């Protein structure tokens, strides 16, 4: 047994009291700050549920066709969505999709500027890299407890937990993509007298876009993998069905809802990947690197 050298109880009590103090005094402020996030999530969810099922199928199948210009992916998407409808999972799937889309959109807005910042400064990268490692490895329950204490159970802590878990790969890949733009092209751009903003918007971001898109793909996948945990604190959706299945020992309910999550993952994974490939082909990065 490791000898007890210090008494950790006062430290723990200080942390708990500190959090309680934050909840008491700043709780309302935090809730007000997170209100736009809630509105975003609600808005997307209401829109998806209000839209007729055939229109959603048509839109997603259409996007799949735009991404690949072939019939295979649209067919997969069509069958997947029909599966969700037939298994009576449609509404839950829309709720889960809304959470995933809201988390991904927020992650994009936050991650890309952070990734840009990291790509420009070694010091910023040194600070952010361990933070990102922490965000990805810390069990989500650890930060779920304080977020639930601050915001109360419901959609906001679920959304925030999903964002914290899903944003790191996008930040990392944005940073990587921007840094791995061909130095010869960057030098040429510099030689023509561009300022840093012109280089970022005109050269770096367009050339890093396939990598950034790979990051968005990762973010959507990680957001989907959080739905079961998120539903424990009130996110609802397919995750809640899985949770209920476990609670009631109804294997079928858990299985169907679980397959529903897989189906959503396949749809969004394949669509974002195909767009990435299409983009890569348009820029001709494959050839440029050889």
């Amino acid at each position, binding site marked *: 047994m490791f000898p007890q050298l210090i008494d950790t109880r006062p430290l723990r009590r200080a942390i708990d009291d500190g959090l309680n103090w934050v909840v008491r005094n700043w709780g309302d402020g935090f809730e007000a700050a997170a209100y736009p996030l809630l509105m975003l999530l609600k808005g997307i969810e209401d829109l998806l549920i209000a839209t007729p099922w055939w229109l959603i199928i048509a839109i997603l199948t259409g996007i799949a066709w735009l991404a690949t210009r072939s019939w295979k992916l649209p067919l997969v998407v069509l069958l997947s969505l029909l599966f969700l409808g037939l298994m009576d999972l449609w509404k839950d799937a829309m709720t889960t999709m809304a959470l995933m889309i809201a988390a991904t959109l927020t992650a994009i807005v936050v991650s890309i500027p952070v990734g840009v910042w990291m790509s420009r400064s070694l010091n910023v990268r040194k600070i952010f890299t361990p933070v990102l490692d922490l965000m990805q490895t810390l069990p989500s329950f650890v930060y779920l407890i304080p977020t639930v204490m601050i915001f109360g159970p419901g959609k906001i802590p679920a959304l925030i937990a999903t964002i914290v878990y899903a944003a790191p790969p996008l930040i990392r890949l944005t940073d990587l993509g921007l840094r791995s733009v061909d130095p010869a092209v960057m*030098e*040429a*751009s510099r*030689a*023509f007298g561009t300022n840093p903003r012109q280089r970022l918007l005109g*050269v770096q971001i*367009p050339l890093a876009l396939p990598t950034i898109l790979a990051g968005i793909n990762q973010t959507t996948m990680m957001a989907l993998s959080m739905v079961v945990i998120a539903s424990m604190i009130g996110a609802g959706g397919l995750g809640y069905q899985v949770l209920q299945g476990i609670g009631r020992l109804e294997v079928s309910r858990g299985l169907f809802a679980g397959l529903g999550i897989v189906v959503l993952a396949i749809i969004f994974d394949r669509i974002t990947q195909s767009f990435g490939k299409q983009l890569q082909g348009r820029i001709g*990065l494959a050839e440029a690197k050889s």
Partner: protein
Amino acid sequence: MSIEANPNLAIAMRGVTKIFGDNPQVALEMLRSGRSKADVQAETGHVVGLDNVSLDIAKGQIFVVMGLSGSGKSTLIRHVNRLIEPTAGEIIVDGTDVLTMTLAQLRSYRRSSVAMVFQKFGLLPHRSVIDNVAYGLEVRGVAKKQRTEEAAKWIEIVGLAGYENSQPRQLSGGQQQRVGLARALALDTDIILMDEAFSALDPLIRSGMQDQLIELQKSLGKTILFITHDFDEALKIGDRIAVLKDGALQQEGKPEDIVLRPANEHIEEFVRQVNKARAIHVRSIMERGATEPCERSVPMDARCEDVLPLFAEHQWVGVLDNDGNQIGRVTAKQVIKALARYSPDAA
């Protein structure tokens, strides 16, 4: 040691030294106290890129800097538009000190005074050919219609008409470098920097590009600073040549000065490899003065390889100036003497 503003000079470099490393000043002190480049590197881990290089580049000529890889030639050219900052020295372009420019002045200088062509082309892969050629103008803030017209004109001049809307990756290496050349020419700067611009191209295409560059330079009168590792290329296009080795200037002069009077062993090695008949102008070896008119004659910028076939029929070949007056004559013997291997003892 300020440089007098000389209106005939496009670029003047004085004592330009570049040391790569964390603490270049310490290495600079060592170098100035007379230690060798190898000593500095062994003791401090600093690499000497350029060692006290001074060059005068007159307006309206093709000035070639020649050297093997690692000689510092690419480092040198990047000092002219300050893509690399020197550790010490002065760089004056068109009478303006490049090193005292603020960041904003430097950007406007790069936009309007020096254009650059790169060995690896440096084209923007996500833009069409015409948008690549218009890139410099776009950065300068020229309106879309005007810059597209200008770009189309230069695409036509470099011989890529019809490829305006292609993507760079659809073009061959030679065509891509024509895009790079058009992009630099479109800026209409007085100075063009070309960093091993033709080195990545096939020999035949390279030769065609060299001819085109010489012609363009004649018609546009630009100052071109051209970097190459290929001595033949340097002799073909250079009005003047500077040879770099290990970051230090070895010799600077007209092509025939270098071929006929190499300054040291290193340059002599290059000279031994080249086709001297192409390098040496007949006017630099001819017998000067008014002589009786010869049956056959050549213009004064003819080279030895141009007159050699004429000796099969004629003993003397005349040399004419631009107005057609004979200014001298050469014999086969003179040409052979010039072409024979240079040896310091015989000279």
